[in-house]
């Protein structure tokens, strides 16, 4: 509650919260709000020559190149983006926490190995790796989520590692140890709670990165599979119409930007509230 109140006091974070709530409402209420099925390729959704229709009374945001209602597709696309944002980023944070804590707490050979592995993953160009993986595996919503998670955990692991090492040296942990507390107890009772602010901050900021990454993969045609709408693949399918039908790029582009921006704003505000000493990236 304290955190929420602090958030609401910041105009930028408030703006972000509102946008996120709207997007969540879009995703949850998509079947109720959407005027058409997102997959319905309507006969009157194309001109006689086969061009998409601009926004009009019947199709609020116009139609796409197959004669489907863009508004309905954007609504259902919100589901895709949020699912990927939550799942992919949730997995990434979980893996990052696990590896970061283990490496930071255990030191020795195991910790060293884990950190070398993290270094190894750091040396992969993230986006390139994601593109290669997504292109080579059979793309689907879950594969895309897995690929993004595989790429995104590394940064979290590094930060958690540094923090855990700091914690391990702290007096109260040393004291617990000398009292003979088990490893699990120390990990769960003392270290993990101290890492929660970091996890929350990165969990939020990471959603922004994830939404952008999903959009990029889908834009390249290797993301979520058609006809399931995603904001990125809507742009992918319409990019050649950029000049003739700008609404097909503008609306999904704007909503991707707004969503990513909102998660960034909230994450940044959370960082200030939860841990004022930590600023800048990383």
């Amino acid at each position, binding site marked *: 509650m304290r955190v929420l109140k602090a958030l609401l006091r910041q105009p930028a974070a408030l703006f972000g919260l509102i946008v996120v709530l709207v997007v969540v409402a879009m995703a949850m209420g998509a079947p109720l709000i959407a005027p058409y099925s997102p*997959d*319905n*390729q309507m*006969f009157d959704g*194309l001109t006689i*020559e*086969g*061009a998409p229709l601009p926004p009009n009374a019947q199709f609020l945001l116009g139609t796409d*190149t*197959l004669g489907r209602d863009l508004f309905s597709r954007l609504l259902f696309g919100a589901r895709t983006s949020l699912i990927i944002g939550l799942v992919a980023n949730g997995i990434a944070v979980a893996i990052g926490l696990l590896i970061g804590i283990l490496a930071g707490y255990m030191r020795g050979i195991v910790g060293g190995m884990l950190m070398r592995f993290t270094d190894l993953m750091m040396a992969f160009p993230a986006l390139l790796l994601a593109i290669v993986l997504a*292109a*080579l595996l*059979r*793309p689907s919503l879950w594969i895309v989520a897995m690929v993004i998670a595989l790429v995104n955990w590394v940064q979290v692991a590094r930060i958690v590692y540094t923090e855990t090492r700091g914690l391990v040296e702290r007096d109260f942990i040393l004291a617990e140890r000398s009292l003979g507390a088990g490893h699990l107890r120390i990990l769960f009772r003392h270290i993990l709670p101290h890492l929660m602010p970091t996890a929350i901050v990165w969990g939020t900021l990471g959603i922004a990165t994830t939404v952008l990454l999903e959009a990029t993969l889908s834009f390249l*045609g*290797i993301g979520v*599979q*058609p*006809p399931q709408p995603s904001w990125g693949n809507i742009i*992918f*399918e319409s*990019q*050649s*119409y*950029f*000049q*003739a*039908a700008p609404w097909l790029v503008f609306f999904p582009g704007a909503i991707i930007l707004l969503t990513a921006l909102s998660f960034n704003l909230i994450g940044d505000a959370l960082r200030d509230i939860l841990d004022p000493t930590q600023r800048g990236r990383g």
Partner: protein
Amino acid sequence: MFKRWLRNTTMATVLALVPVSVWAQDTPQQGGDIIVTYKDDIATLDPAIGYDWVNWSMIKSLYSRLMDYTPGTATLVPSLAETFGVSDDGLTYTFKLRKGVKFTNGREVVASDVKYSIERAANPKTQGPGAGFFGSIKGYEDVSGGKSTTLEGIEVPDDSTVIFHLSRADATFLHVLAINFASVVPHEAVEAAGSDFGKKPVGSGTFVLKDWTIGQRLVFERNPDYFVKDMPHIDKFTVEVGQEPLVALLRLQKGEVDIAGDGIPPAKFLEIKNSPDGPKMIVDGQQLHTGYITLNTKVKPFDNLKVRQALNMAINKDRITRVLNGRATAANQPLPPLMPGYDKGFTGYTYNVEKAKALLAEAGFPDGFETVLYSTNTDPQPRIAQAIQQDLAAVGVKAEVRALAQANVIAAGGTEGEAPMIWSGGMAWIADFPDPSNFYGPILGCSGAISGGWNWSWYCNQDIDKRAVAADSMSDPAKVEERAAVWGKIFTDIMADAPWIPIINERRVVAKSVRMGGADNIYIDPTRVINYDAIYVKQ
């Protein structure tokens, strides 16, 4: 009979000397530099290896072959050969070479160069994709099996004579000598370049490669010593690579580019078509192309003929042509309309949702079934796959669309039992040479229904296979018409088994700048794509 045909072909050669005047509205001008763009890098220019539709036309112009085609048509004419004759049994072909033809390194082209070039293309060490085309030449098995490096079926009695001995009659053999893999190369240049011959090509064609900046541009200049006078027409063409089709088109409208090689993205098509200069910039013509869906006869429930027939009636092809902005026509048989043997009277399966549902019910699927539809992942193919998906849903068939990179789709198609349905768009069969047999063997015949093959329906009908072999041994030129009719019947009979759903015949649309001259069929040449020899710049 042969003599008469020979005379006719020599007549055709005369036409070939001034080919464009026959087709174009105005006389071609000499000179001019033009710029052509493509998105992808140009792969090798080695004629024994190059095999995609972009380098195909460049290789055509860099080298010459014994046979070639009249520009813009599918008419075979002697090229490097002056005359030729065929024995009565169709097993021996004798060619007399044109005198005084020189490679661009200055050496004269002799008969042994022809032998060397074809043996090189057939040799497995070359890793050439076209080796199999020479399978009817005597001794081919020894070469492909690595037992020999020379083809015993090619005889070179003197510097200007080449004799081919075939192990079986092959009605397509003259076409085989006109495809790129039969291009004549000088052995000394090949040996000097080693594995890099594809980047340092030497031939005796209309153009010479002057410069190649990897990832940026290739510069071709006319070969001043080319053996046909006033060919080619342009002095130079520069190929710029890495250009998105959309960007290339915007540049073309500004006059910075003369030919946008990748065609016109759907969105721009309407805009340009409806613009004042549109008609002068768009070349829109038929090509030897059929877009189809393969129904895997080895995967349930497509092993059931009724299911395959039902789905043939379920697709609204007219809507698909509309999604393509009318740049295609609905297809009802494997052969495209321009191909000899195409049956104009054949109607195939007409679009009828009710009948399709009834047939599915009869086959035991009143509620439809679930399946997977593969497609390549470049626009507009996933969109077409979705249109097909919607049509299938209307008869109760739930198809999951899998849009993958082209190579992955090809791999899935060639794996037994893997891909139930494949939409062929983006990798559809475009004929290697204008002969109906080329639409059978690899994609519908038993020989293609193997692991890694291109017969993605895994359709194998022994009876039809026998008829195909019979048709291909009808090498008597007098029976050309009859042979075409036999082939036509083969394809319409295949449709009774319904291994494919023929969807569309897509027209090729090329954008050219207003100053480019030449008839439309020079830009959509049935054997070359763009015929760089015949295009010209209007002054």
